[in-house]
């Protein structure tokens, strides 16, 4: 009886969590006009989640491109199609790897720090203090971080993809000897700007950016105000957003392709 009750509680609890998350998103969206007053705060967050993530994104992008070039070259060599290396690297990166890997890195790099920061604000009563001063914490703390994540993700993803192409080129052309012109012409011939770059890269990364930011600020804002609670919320941000990214990736691919 109690086990059943427990299971029911988990079900109802997770439903309630999703519901709270949705309502929280509504609160953020309604607070966005108000948060325009704190545009400088948004810029600071953009610096923090975007510009500060560049190093890891660029490094990872380079290596993902390099390993793709290496793997694809050897697989395509079996079929005598090494000239397609460029286009396959580009397609793989634009459609899947770019948005997904960037999103996973972003959740780990930026999502966690947003959660931890907001969680600590909550734990040290800074949010309560803001409310006392009639400063809306949603408009001043949450919305800027949400917007910054939304803007930063597509830009980071573009940087990631650019570096991946560069890495693929480095391995395939400079190292393995695919012809430079073939590499690029094959790529430009097979990659379509709307289907691959806009639908694959931009839309996916925008959605992922919104989801990661929402989960991060939500977990931070609703964390129990203890040090254990903050640690727990940070973990949950990574786990939940990773699952959400991979599940949404499938759904988005099915819709956009």
């Amino acid at each position: 009886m109690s086990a059943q009750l427990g299971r029911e509680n988990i079900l109802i609890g997770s439903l309630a969590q999703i519901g709270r998350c949705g309502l929280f998103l509504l609160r953020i969206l309604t607070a966005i006009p108000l948060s325009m007053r704190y545009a400088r705060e948004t810029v600071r967050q953009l610096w923090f989640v975007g510009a500060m993530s560049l190093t890891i994104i660029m490094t990872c992008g380079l290596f993902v491109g390099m390993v793709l070039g290496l793997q694809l070259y050897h697989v395509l060599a079996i079929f005598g199609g090494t000239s397609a290396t460029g286009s396959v690297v580009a397609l793989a990166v634009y459609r899947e790897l770019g948005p997904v890997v960037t999103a996973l890195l972003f959740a780990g790099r930026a999502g966690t720090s947003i959660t931890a920061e907001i969680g600590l604000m909550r734990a040290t009563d800074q949010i309560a203090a803001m409310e006392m001063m009639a400063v809306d914490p949603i408009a001043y703390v949450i919305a800027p971080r949400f917007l910054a994540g939304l803007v930063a993700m597509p830009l980071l993803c573009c940087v990631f993809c650019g570096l991946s192409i560069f890495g693929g080129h480095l391995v395939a052309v400079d190292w393995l000897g695919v012809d430079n012109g073939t590499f690029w012409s094959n790529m430009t011939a097979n990659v379509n700007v709307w289907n691959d770059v806009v639908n694959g890269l931009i839309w996916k990364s925008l959605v992922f950016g919104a989801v990661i930011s929402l989960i991060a600020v939500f977990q931070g804002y609703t964390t129990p105000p203890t040090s254990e609670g903050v640690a727990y919320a940070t973990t949950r941000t990574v786990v939940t957003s990773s699952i959400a990214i991979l599940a949404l990736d499938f759904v988005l691919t099915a819709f956009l392709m």
Partner: protein
Amino acid sequence: MSQRKSYAVGTGLFIVLGFAALAYLATQTTSVVNSHQGASYTVDAQFSDIGQLKERAPVKVAGVRVGQVQSITLDPGKAVADVTLLIDKKFSQIPANSVATIYTSGLLGDQYVGLQYGNAKAYLANGSHVGLTKSTQPLEEMLSKFLGSNGAADAIGGTYKVTAHFTNVGALTVGAPVKMAGVAIGSVSDVKADPVKLDATVTMSINKQYNQIPDDSAAAIFTSGLIGTQYVAIQPGGSPNSLKEGDQLVLTQSAVQLEDLIGKFLVSGSPSGNNNNAGGNGSSNQPAGKH
């Protein structure tokens, strides 16, 4: 304040870098197939089969892109596809009697519409109609033409059947081409084992237009290329009589088995094994009488 300024500059740099990367990806690594600038005009063409042609596929003249496919609709009532082509205004001097053909770029590439210039003095204008079109050639049709298998060969006025006995047919299958001088003249319609003679009976359907084949011609099973499919080659003889329906080709040469060939190579000088074999084995290079 200076602290604040430094991150503002950094953020600005980040945004510029992001957009620069986007611009680079969008312009340098993709084909901007669907963006056409400037004025254009539409012409329409009707095709009986558009194959895999898609909207926004390129329209090319001499291989150079001049426009794109705007829409593809099925003409109601007729099994004809209406294709509207959007052509850039600067290519306004396309003769009115040009031919529109659906081509495939490469073996596996996308399809596009190619325009071959006619010789008319009048030019295609907005809304005009390309009267001469050539539809896509399905790969299957081309292959079957090439291989001379049933479909294409039968269509041209019937076939007649002849049989041949082989001691070994290798991987010969029904539908394999029958060739003379390398040209497909028919196809294999049946391969089965003869329960009495203990060899393989191959029935071939040969196109009726090739009815002058001498009846002492030899049939051999060859392989096209190293890993290609096998086919029956007819090597004409010198008899004044021609093959007729139901005739049998007595001179045959079986499929060469790679194993036999290698075995011969390795134990050269001891061909005695062949003599024990009543029918002669498949590795014999002479199409001389085994029957």
